[in-house]
Structures are given as structure tokens and as C-alpha cells.
């Protein structure tokens, strides 16, 4: 297992490198640059700017300097659009926010989703099952860009209970709506996956054997059925975890949280090269790590899998 982990991490380095190089070239091939604006900048001024940021160098040299700065100084470069801040500032300010509401959304989505799914499967074809399934489908059909307006209209405008957006140091009032908006549709999917997986497991031979042995139902569910039930859920949760952690663009924009998702999209639109690359590296590294953790979790949940 240790050597497997080590090998995976070793492969991660060229993967990340490939990601950076591809992203770097794609970004530079996109029409327009960071200083393309409605007011064309006079050539002398543009020359100064390009010299300051090294944009006058050949592309391979820019890429090389960029990588050297990262590995030697851990400096991800300046932001062209926000001149008071560099990429390290932008990530260190935005990522903790995305992390906070993303992690909470993940916990809410998985806890509620799994409970609903398990409950529905155990009480198969009962009112609980039907309501859980309906709720799951409804939730799944409510992406965050639908949830956002519904939540704001209800809780901010009509009821006046919650602030309509902002972060304010992450006070709980400011967290509720982003977390609900982000977690609802994942919760629905998790509930449905858990339910069908649990139903399948409960019909399998080893559960029948356990029942025949006369084990109490509670023990059957918790000790024997739970682990195999969660296998497909785990493979779904991996990417979801990265998605919610890296911040949802929509939630950031709609609730003005100040999270990283918005900076990411803005950087692509404004051709803020260093910010775009920096956040891509962060997202890429997170994806690689979480995928590894998911694979390791498989081994724990399924004794048949060994590395």
C-alpha cells in the first residue's frame, strides 16, 4: 500500500507538469491578452508593461521562468488584473472561504444523502422510501443556479432572516444559503446512489446468509451491508469533494462569498495568466490527491481490492 501510494505520487508530478504546460499554451493561444482593452494601450506603455511582467520573452522562456519561480521561491507570479495582489494573495484569501463552505456542503450532502438513501432502502416501498426518492429527485433537479434565487427570495426578501450574500468573516448566517445551494443537488444524487446500492446489497447472498444465521437487522445493516453499499457512493464522492472544495463559481458570484471559484473564471476571462495557472495547479493537485485517497478508501471498504 505504501509503495502503491508512493508510485501514484510519483506519477502525479509529470501529470501536473503536463497540465501546466497544456494550460499555459492554450491560454496564450486564446485571442487577446491581459492588456487587451477597449482603450488600446499606446505601444510605449505596452512595451513597459510587457517588460515588467516578462511578456516580451519567448513563450518557452516565460514558462521556464514561471516554473523556476514556483519551485525555487514558491512564487506563483503577479496578477495582471488586480495590481495590489499576487497569485499567492488571491489563493490564500479565496481558498479558505471556498474550503469552508465547500467542506460544509460536502458534509451536509453526504450525511443527509446517505441517511436518506439507507432509510429508503431499508423501508423499501414504504412511505419513507417514496418521500426519500421524491426528495432525492427534486433535489437533484435543483442545481445551485436555481436554488440560489429561490433561497435569496425566500430567506432574504420575504422572511428577512438571512443576509442576501457576503462573507463577513464566515459567520453562520452568511454560510447557510451557500451551503444549501451547493449541497442540495449532490445530496439528491448521493441519496439515489445509496438507495439503489443498498437495495442491491440487501438482496445479495451474503446478507441472506447473515439473516439465516439469525443476526439482528441492525447488525446486518451496519456491520455487513454498509461497507459494500458505500463503494459506488465513494467513487461519486471523490470528484464531488474536489468540486465543492474548489468553490462553485455560481455560489461565489451569486452570494458574493469572495471564494476562489469566481477568481478562477475571472482570470480566464481577463487573461490573467498567472492567476489562471496558479488556480489550475491547485485544482489539479487537489484532484490528484483526492483520487488517490478515493482509491485507498476502496481498499478499506472492499476487502477484495488490494494494492
Amino acid at each position, binding site marked *: 500500500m505504501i509503495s502503491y501510494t508512493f508510485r501514484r505520487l510519483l506519477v502525479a508530478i509529470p501529470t501536473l507538469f503536463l497540465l501546466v504546460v497544456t494550460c499555459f499554451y492554450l491560454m496564450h493561444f*486564446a*485571442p*487577446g*491578452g491581459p*492588456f*487587451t*482593452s*477597449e*482603450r*488600446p*494601450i*499606446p505601444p*510605449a*506603455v505596452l512595451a*513597459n*508593461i510587457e*517588460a*515588467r*511582467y516578462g511578456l516580451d520573452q519567448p513563450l518557452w522562456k516565460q514558462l521556464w521562468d514561471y516554473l523556476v519561480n514556483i519551485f525555487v521561491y514558491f512564487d506563483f507570479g503577479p496578477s495582471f*488584473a*488586480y*495590481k*495590489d*495582489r*499576487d497569485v499567492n494573495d*488571491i489563493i490564500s*484569501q*479565496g481558498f479558505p472561504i471556498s474550503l469552508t463552505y465547500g467542506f460544509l456542503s460536502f458534509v451536509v450532502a453526504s450525511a443527509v444523502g446517505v441517511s436518506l438513501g439507507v432509510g429508503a432502502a431499508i423501508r423499501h416501498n414504504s412511505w419513507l422510501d417514496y418521500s426519500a426518492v421524491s426528495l432525492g429527485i427534486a433535489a437533484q433537479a435543483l442545481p445551485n443556479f436555481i436554488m*440560489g*434565487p429561490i433561497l*435569496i*427570495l425566500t430567506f*432574504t*426578501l420575504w422572511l*428577512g432572516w438571512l*443576509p*442576501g*450574500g*457576503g*462573507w*463577513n468573516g464566515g459567520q453562520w448566517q452568511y454560510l447557510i444559503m451557500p451551503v444549501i445551494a451547493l449541497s442540495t443537488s449532490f445530496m439528491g444524487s448521493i441519496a439515489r446512489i445509496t438507495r439503489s446500492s443498498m437495495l442491491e446489497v440487501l438482496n445479495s447472498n451474503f446478507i441472506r446468509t447473515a439473516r439465516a444465521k439469525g443476526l439482528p437487522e441492525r447488525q446486518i445493516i451496519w456491520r455487513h451491508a454498509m461497507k459494500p453499499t458505500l463503494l459506488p457512493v465513494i467513487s461519486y464522492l471523490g470528484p464531488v469533494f474536489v468540486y465543492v472544495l474548489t468553490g462553485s463559481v455560481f455560489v*461565489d*458570484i*451569486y*452570494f*458574493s*462569498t*469572495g*471564494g476562489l471559484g*469566481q*477568481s478562477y473564471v*475571472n482570470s480566464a*476571462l*481577463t*487573461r490573467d495568466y498567472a492567476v489562471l495557472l496558479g488556480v489550475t495547479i491547485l485544482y489539479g493537485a487537489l484532484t490528484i490527491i483526492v483520487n488517490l485517497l478515493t482509491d485507498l478508501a476502496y481498499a478499506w471498504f472492499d476487502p477484495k481490492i488490494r494494492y
Partner: protein
Amino acid sequence: MTMHTKYSLAALLCSTMLAAPALAGGHIPADVTLAEDQTFTYRQLDEFSSVDPGVVEDVSGSEMVRDLFEGLMSQDADGNLVPGVATHFEANDDNTVYTFTLRDNAKWSNGDPVTAGDFVYAWQRAASPALASPYQWYIELMSIENGSAVIKGDKPLSDLGVKAINDTTLQVTLSAPLPYFPQMVTHGTTFPVHKATIEAHGSDWTKPGNIVSNGAYVLTEHLPNERSVRERNPMYWDDANTTIDKTVALVINDENVALTRFLAGELDRTEIPAGQFPRLKEEYPGVAISFPRLCNYYYTFNLSDSGPEVFKDVRVRKALALAVDRKIITENVLAGGQPQAYTFTPAAVAEFTPPETEMAKMAQAERDAMAKELLAEAGFGPNNPLQFDMIYNTSDGHKKIAVAMTQMWKQKLGVEATLANMEWKVFLETRGNQDFELARGAWCGDYNEASTFLDLLDSESGYNDGKFVNADVDGLLEQAKLSTDASSLYTQVEQIIAEEMPIIPIYHYAGVYMMDSDVGNWPVGNVEQNWYSKDLYKIAE
């Protein structure tokens, strides 16, 4: 001999003469009871680019910079010049040397005095190739002596035409006579910066805690993409007449969310989304407001060699411009009180008289008839419909207008226009490379004078994406630069534009706001919307 102009020169350019310097905060009417909580909260569309006066380039950032720093001159609620750090100025006979006298009680937020040397340092810094500010061009625009050479790096910073004669006297030498120069020093690029702070903190100097500024406010909190807070600077020379204690800018991208949050009482000011003004005005009279702004909205023909041959025929250009029913666009699509446009320059620009163009005087039915005639003359008809592509940058608002225009052309003239939208940077690149046939354009004035618009149609202008070339226009604009009253020249330029029709003017912008009724003294009369928190106040409800 030096001419003592003080404000008379500025008044030439301003719509109203400044009788006496208005004191900030001194204009709260006697019958107003001030609210206990003097916090002004407004919606900011985007995260600001910077609050460093030397590099700031966007509207959001400029609004903050005007509160945090104070330049030589400021503007009042009507856009007239009022003293800032400078109490008055003098110009020589040909307007090439300006001498500003600075007040001796102006202080930085750390207590240091604001001196002429701070301005010299700030202007040299803004022009320096090392800072590489995208607003270096503003130094060139101000025609400061040796500005271009300093920016290119051909001359040292010390050669820039700005000198501190002593701590309270600043002398600026220009390479060309510029009667509206005093107007230009209300712009953020010309504001002073605190040298010791910049040297101590480097690029981190604008962060809350580090920043030292000379305006009525200091930056105390900033969470990017979420909020920024500026609070009273007790060291400000006119702090006694300042009323608002705290100004909070909340970044809200989505205008509908912003409106909801305004209605929930979280904001004192926000923009009204297109089309909602009539309803809101009825529901919230006095709160939903609309007033003219210094921006235009137009479509430009590609008249360069790469443009289509058909657009080189003025009859075609005129026909298309005539058939656009601006009333439908301003009243039904935008519905925010925007004026219809028949000239490139908005009528709200100071000292600008729009010409009485033929098109403006006609009824729409007459325009349509004339358009049909012109297009037939040019050889287009049902069997040979005019076809072209038009581009705009991706946005719901632009799309609505573009669709409306193509429908009007199709129904009235049988014209087949193909629409294409592009992401902003791709759009700018495409338009800038003359890789289009008809393209959307919009421009907001940098200062309140017609040349800020009309310069776009100068054949040498870098902004002239349609490559309109007209020697008469170039000549008139050249003449206007040297004239102290260029008003009639600008009218003549507009007359030529109306005849040649290199662009299709659609509408001029309006500021369409929800403004809480407890906000006092919002400068609706300032068409540039250069507002200062220190001039506002909150009324007790």
C-alpha cells in the same frame, strides 16, 4: 505676464460658474436631521483593480481612490471644479504653465504634511517605465512636458515637467496649450502618494493597515470579491465638515441579486437591471432614479480596406442608421430613461451643442421611407437583399438590442444581418484588427469635454476601430485643441458625422439607480458620476 485665472478658466469649460468654493459637508440643509449611523453601503459591480492612484484603471477602483486620496482639484455635485489639496491655480498666457498653490493644512493619514513634493513623486512614479502602469497614457494625454520621452525611458523621471517650487507650490509645464488641464487633475492618476509608505511596504502598500492616504477616508478592511470598507481619516484637513463615517462597498456581480439585497435593506445604492425601471419607479417613487451619463452606445462600420465594399457607400450606412427605431430600444428594451442618440457625443457633455441633424428632426416613418429610398438607390431590393455580419460582445443586454436592430432592418428594408457574439477579449481583438463588418461600440468620457468622444473618430486615433478617415474632422479636432471655446467646432464635427455616418449612434447612457431616500446629496448632476463620500450624508428616517 501671468494671468490670474483662478477658477475663471475652469468655468469656461464648466456648465456653471463656480461662485464660491463649496465646502464639503457644509451644504447639509438646516431642516435635515442626520441619522445616527452614518454608514453608506453601495453595490460594486466588480472587484476593483487597485487603490493605488498610480495604477488604478477601472470605475470601481477610481471611486475608492477619490475617497482615499485627494488630488489638486475635486468636483462638486454638478461636476464643477472645487479646490482639493490646491486652494487655487494660475496659468500663463498660452496655458502651457500651470502653478498650483497647495493648502498648508493638508495632512496624510499618519500626520505627515502633504507637500508639492508628494505630487512630483506621484506623477513621476505614474510615468515611470518601472511601475508600468496601464494609465501611463494619461500622463501623455495631459501633455506634460517630456511625458512621452519619460514613459519610453529615453529621459530620466526628473525631466518630467512637474516641479515643486516649495512645499506649497507646484508648477506643471505642458508641451501643448491645454485650457482644460485643471479638469484633468481631478483624475486619480494625478493624486499624490506617500513615498515613505511605498518604500517601506513595496507592492503591499495599499493593503489595510499599511496604506497611508491623504483623502477623507482610509482603507480599513478589504476582502477581495466580497467587500471593502473605508473609514473617516481624522487627519483630513476638512474632517470637521465630513459627515459619512464609513463607506462600505459590497461586490455583487449579479444585478438582480443586488436589487434584492437593496430591497432587503442591505444596500443604500444599486443599479437597476435593464427593463425594470418603469415598474420600480412606480413602486418606489423617489428611490428609483435616472439621470444622464457621459457614455454612448453605437455600432461602427468597418470602413477599412478589409471592410465590405457595400459599407463604403454612404447611402447604405445612412439607410441602416435611419431604420433603427431608437424609441423602441430606449423605451421598450432598456426602459431606463436613456436618451436616444443621433450624435456620437452625448448632449449632457459640458459646453457641447448637438447639431440639428436632419435625422433627429424626422419622424420614424419618414426615416424608414428615406432608408428604403436610399437602399434602393444603392442597388439593394427584395431580389438583391443587403447582407452583412454584425458582432457584439456576449451579454444579454447587447443581444436584445442587436436582435431588435436586425429585426427592424429585416422588416423595413429586407436586410439580412447575421449576428455573432464573442467573449470580450476575443471581441476586442477582432474589432481592433478590423476583422468585422459591423461591430458594437461604447465609450465613456474620461473628462467632461466633447473631445473625449470625438477623438475616437480622428483618423490617427488608436481607438478608431472602424478606420473612418476624414480630413475635415481631423482638421477641426486639431483646431479644437488650441481653441479656448471649441464648442462650435465640435458641433461641426458632429455635423460631418451625421452626413458621413461612419457609426450608428443608438443611445446615450443614463445612470439608473435605486438610491435609498435617506442618502443625502447624491450628485445626480455630475454626469461623470465622480462622487465623494465626504459630500454625502445620511438622513434620519
